[in-house]
């Protein structure tokens, strides 16, 4: 008996899983970026207290650990999405939404200056990722 490789779901479930992948990825990126910003320049820390000091500085940050947890959640929700949604839709859609979501979240939570140049970059990269999947 040949088993189907994908169980096709409706559009609401499809986009809900894709948005979950993107949202957890954005949370992971913003939390790790916020944590490294608080910790400070890792090049300087490594120069002064070695690689072990840099690793200790990073892993002792709860914000960083939550970021890694979010990244792991994103990875497993991507695996779940790929078991239900076609790769040619799931991968580029989640990657593109992640790029745009990161631009919004960086402006909102990290107070980054997301100027016109950076918005254009996010949009160009989104479009580029979509075309790569064709």
């Amino acid at each position: 008996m040949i088993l189907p490789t994908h169980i096709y779901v409706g559009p609401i479930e499809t986009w809900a899983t894709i948005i979950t992948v993107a949202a957890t990825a954005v949370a992971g990126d913003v939390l790790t970026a916020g944590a490294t910003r608080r910790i400070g320049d890792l090049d300087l820390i490594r120069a002064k207290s070695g690689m072990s000091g840099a690793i200790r500085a990073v892993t002792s940050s709860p914000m960083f650990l939550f970021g890694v947890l979010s990244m792991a959640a994103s990875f497993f929700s991507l695996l779940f999405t790929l078991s239900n949604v076609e790769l040619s839709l799931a991968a580029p859609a989640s990657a593109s939404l992640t790029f745009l979501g990161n631009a919004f979240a960086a402006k909102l939570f990290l107070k980054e200056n997301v100027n016109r140049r950076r918005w254009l970059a996010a949009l160009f990269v989104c479009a580029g990722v979509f075309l790569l999947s064709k």
Partner: protein
Amino acid sequence: MKHTLTPQRYLILLAVMLTASVGDTLLSHGMTQIGPVSLAHLVLLLAALRNPWVITGILCLLGFFASYLTALSWADLTFVLPSTAFGYVVVAFLAKYWQHETITVYRWLGILLIVCGVGFVANGPSLTLHESQHPAEESTSAAESTIQGVTR
């Protein structure tokens, strides 16, 4: 806002791009040697950990995470992320010249758009400054307070 990147920091961004794309390609090459892994035969994933291509791929991805975190400690997320997207371009070239895959016109167009996107941010400032703080002072003071915490 102004440029804060030294040549060494551009090298770290290059490492972010290359380690991610080369790592993914090595994993892909290794997993094609292992063959398809079904839910009923998950033990095959352990066998994959003995494949030299997979091992090298994992080492590359560990290098990616280290250099990605380093880059985030002195540059904005919205500066680093489009740079990492350049890895898609590297993967496309590796797929064409190493795996001998065909690159369609759509993909070349996608590559062009990503290159343009990366160019937009690469020419701009790398870090947002808050409350007229100097970038060197900001990163140095934060790093020194962390070092004190670590060495304590």
